[in-house]
């Protein structure tokens, strides 16, 4: 027995403590995992010992390992043992480990309740302190409920050290157990006037955080906060009060806002702390936003803020620049005019080396575009895109460009041809992850803006011709997604195509089979549409030979799709192949078949609103909660049923085989197309437009001015978007001249009657007429659906539960 003890203590001499462990890990850089698993085994041995010091040491090491990323939840019980040690240093280790690794899912937490209670009422303030600190990290609703009272009494403890911690942990307790808020609140309020500044700021923090979520319950505290704000010199407290209390309270109480402006502006002028300045500016903005009208020096305060922000942005310290831009974007939402004047500064920030600043400047630009400057801004962004090769920033730029352009249903675009050429230029980017975005935009514009379809189709045809340049990048969401859009647009609006034959051949090239499956599927589908329109053309002009040639071409090239690995492509290709073989037979018999083929694609599909599905009214007489079949009874007869089910299916399956002739095929295709046409989610893959029996008019040739920009990929025939900028300027200039002439005439007539603002030669937004007549088709919704929006409220939001009226 004695020998065992000696042996045991000798073993203990060789135990590693934390320092040894850390040193050991640093020394074993190559086989770190092995070393650590060795250490974990040693720790497990140590945990089996009775000696509490040894256990504490082991838990200490475990905590360190947990920080490195190793799971230690298996040691939860041991941690609790260490927590119950009488010596403070061991207890501290236990609580630290608990705070790091316990969470709501740990099942042994309930064993800690009594231990924590004992520690909370311990005479030693440090025990209480460490218990409070540790508890805050792993408090659960049960723990909160059991310990709330103890913590509340601690709020009135003699030592400020404990009071401070108790006040802070009450917030966590409130979150987990909301019913404790009402009894605890009066005491919390008292702490706001506690002599100790630490306790006071703790109370301010807690109440501010509560007030932020449910401001209306804390309005009665506003005078108290006001007093604190004017008397306190502690910057941290000031920041909290200003941000949380006033930012949240002023929207509810406008008079408070008016009173606030004065001291806030004083602070802005006097403080040297940047953080406080930033906070004040933010709050002033928030306050002024909430005040609707009636403030005499409303605009003066905004001007002051904008001025200060400008100073921040011009500062050489990047941090201040960032903050300035951040705050500006907040002002932008409600006072765009005051920010517009600083556009030059923001455009300058776009050139900054720092990515965060560039992102903020981009965000600001989003709100500052207007019809006038959209082209200029996008041009600048495109230059950036060229410069920013191979970074995530470039992707960000891309999304931003598209966002800016497509805002509010393309409100700011005056020339859609320009926009399409921008999109086409964006396709030249390599390695982007937003190909689908560009594709979606192309589709959207082509569908909605009827006037632009001709131009769009010619561009898309060019893209398809040069598909080999784009198809090399076949990653998901890569730029090859654009081919998806290109193929669909060409197929859908094929009546605008000049060289339908050429495009069809481009789509049939073997390289197409390297594209992702979903793109190939669209290719196959649209090939048929193209084929149909070509067929019709040829038959109308009587070129039967050419018509048969085309059919032959399709039959030769389709099998490569039939052999595709993608199911969708395979299915579509085989259906179409059969159909075309059938058509060929009819062609040999000299039957005019084009009319019927065209009829396959009759009908036009409009874009559908995103909430349309939700708004579909439930038909009368339909009760979605009623059982369709009788609920299954838990009897043994169930076992016998499965066999018969399978037997039936087998028989049905055998019946299906002989019916696979062409008529059935065609009928099923028809039915499927009908289904797809009615299904709002099926828009992009399988639409059915209406073919117009018109000849495609000649495309006006826009003079292609070669502007020498350094672009990475120059595809012949693709227009540069810059020429549109020039065209646009010329057009606007002409418009302006005309309008001026008209105004002068009108002025002569109405002299003296009205004092018009038109004497100022600034163009307003409405003066600029768009280059094309834009007929943006609005989205479809089910009948009588209201375009209202309902926010999904999270039922589990803990802050909702804290919304109780404290004045009663």
């Amino acid at each position, binding site marked *: 027995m004695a020998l065992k003890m000696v042996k045991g203590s000798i073993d203990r001499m060789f135990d590693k403590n934390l*320092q040894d462990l850390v040193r050991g890990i640093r020394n074993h850089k190559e086989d770190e995992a092995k070393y650590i698993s060795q250490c974990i085994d040693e720790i497990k041995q140590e945990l089996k010992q009775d000696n509490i010091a040894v256990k504490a040491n082991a838990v200490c090491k475990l905590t360190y390992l947990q920080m490195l990323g190793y799971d230690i939840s298996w040691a939860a019980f041991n941690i609790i043992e260490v927590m119950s040690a009488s010596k403070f240093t061991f207890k501290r280790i236990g609580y630290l480990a608990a705070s790091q690794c316990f969470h709501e899912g740990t099942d042994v937490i309930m064993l800690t309740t009594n231990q924590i209670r004992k520690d909370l009422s311990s005479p030693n303030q440090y025990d209480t302190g460490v218990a409070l600190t540790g508890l805050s990290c792993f408090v659960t609703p049960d723990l909160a409920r059991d310990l709330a009272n103890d913590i509340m009494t601690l709020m009135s403890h003699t030592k400020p050290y404990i009071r401070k911690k108790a006040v802070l942990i009450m917030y966590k307790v409130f979150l987990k157990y909301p019913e404790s808020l009402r009894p605890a609140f009066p005491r919390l309020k008292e702490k706001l006037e506690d002599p100790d500044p630490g306790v006071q700021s703790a109370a301010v923090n807690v109440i501010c955080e509560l007030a932020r979520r449910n401001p209306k319950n804390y309005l009665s505290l506003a005078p108290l906060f006001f007093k604190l704000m004017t008397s306190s010199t502690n910057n941290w407290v000031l920041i909290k009060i200003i941000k949380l209390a006033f930012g949240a309270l002023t929207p509810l109480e406008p008079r408070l806002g008016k009173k606030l402006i004065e001291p806030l502006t004083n602070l802005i002028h006097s403080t040297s702390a940047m953080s406080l300045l930033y906070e004040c500016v933010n709050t002033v903005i928030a306050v002024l936003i909430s005040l609707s009208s009636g403030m005499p020096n409303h605009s003066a305060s905004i001007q002051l803020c904008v001025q200060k922000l400008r100073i921040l942005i011009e500062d050489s310290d990047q941090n201040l620049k960032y*903050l300035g831009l951040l705050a500006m974007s907040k002002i932008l939402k409600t006072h765009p005019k005051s920010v517009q004047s600083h556009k030059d500064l923001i455009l300058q920030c776009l050139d900054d*080396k720092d990515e965060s600043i560039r992102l903020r400047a981009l965000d600001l630009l989003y709100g500052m575009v207007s019809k006038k400057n959209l082209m200029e801004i996008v041009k600048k962004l495109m230059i950036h895109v060229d410069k920013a090769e191979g970074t995530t920033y470039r992707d960000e730029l891309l999304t931003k460009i598209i966002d800016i352009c497509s805002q509010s249903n393309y409100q700011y675009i005056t020339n859609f041809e320009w926009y399409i050429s921008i999109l086409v230029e964006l396709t030249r980017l390599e390695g982007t992850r937003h190909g689908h975005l560009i594709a979606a935009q192309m589709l959207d514009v082509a569908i909605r803006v009827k006037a632009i379809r001709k131009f769009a189709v010619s561009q898309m045809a060019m893209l398809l011709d040069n598909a080999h340049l784009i198809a090399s990048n076949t990653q998901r969401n890569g730029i090859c997604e654009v081919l998806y859009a290109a193929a669909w647009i060409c197929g859908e609006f094929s009546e605008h195509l000049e060289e339908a034959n050429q495009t069809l051949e481009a789509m049939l090239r073997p390289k197409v089979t390297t594209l992702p499956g979903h793109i190939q599927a669209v290719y196959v589908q649209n090939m048929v549409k193209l084929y149909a329109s070509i067929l019709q053309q040829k038959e109308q002009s009587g070129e039967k030979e050419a018509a048969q040639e085309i059919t032959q071409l399709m039959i030769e090239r389709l099998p490569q799709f039939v052999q595709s690995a993608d199911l969708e492509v395979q299915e579509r290709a085989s259906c179409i192949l059969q159909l075309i073989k059938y058509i060929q037979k009819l062609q040999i018999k000299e039957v005019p078949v084009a009319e019927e083929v065209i009829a396959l694609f009759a009908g036009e599909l409009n874009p559908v609103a995103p909430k349309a599905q939700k708004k579909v009214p439930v038909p009368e007489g339909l009760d979605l909660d009623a059982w369709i079949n009788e609920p299954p009874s838990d009897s043994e007869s169930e076992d016998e049923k499965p066999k018969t089910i399978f037997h039936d299916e087998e028989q049905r399956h055998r019946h299906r085989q002989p019916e696979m002739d062409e008529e059935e095929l065609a009928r099923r295709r028809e039915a499927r197309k009908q289904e797809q046409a009615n299904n709002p989610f099926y828009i992009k893959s399988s639409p059915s437009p209406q073919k117009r029996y018109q000849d495609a008019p000649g495309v006006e040739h826009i003079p292609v001015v070669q502007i020498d920009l350094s672009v990475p990929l120059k595809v012949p025939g693709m227009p540069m978007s810059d020429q549109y900028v020039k065209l646009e300027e010329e057009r606007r200039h002409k418009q302006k001249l005309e309008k001026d002439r008209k105004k002068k005439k009108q002025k002569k007539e109405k002299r003296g009657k009205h004092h018009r603002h038109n004497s100022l030669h600034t163009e307003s937004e409405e003066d600029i007429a768009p280059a094309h007549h834009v007929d943006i088709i609005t989205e479809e919704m089910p009948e009588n659906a209201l375009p209202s929006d309902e926010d999904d409220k999270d039922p589990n939001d803990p802050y909702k539960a804290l919304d109780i009226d404290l004045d009663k």
Partner: protein
Amino acid sequence: MIKFFLMVNKQGQTRLSRYYEHVEINKRTMLEAEVIKNCLSRLKDQCSFIEYKDFKLVYRQYAALFVVVGINETENEMAVYELIHNFVEVLDKYFSRVVRHSIYYEIFLL
């Protein structure tokens, strides 16, 4: 709201991590690796605020050690920046001249 507080060295090893929200342990290492990558790739003259996923990182470099704090959008970034400095000053006072050694070995025993 502060989401987490990290102290990381230049090689990317975490010296101290404190999470104020429960995050799965395997996700923690991934998160730390990405955060560190973002911070290490910054130059000296770039601003200390990085936007990462749905929260912001405020970081400060002290010799070979980075202190990174993750915050959400309601927090005043400048205040957190000052807080980091405050924290380091407190450590300095406590250890009377903070050295890497003290961070690595003794911070646990705080």
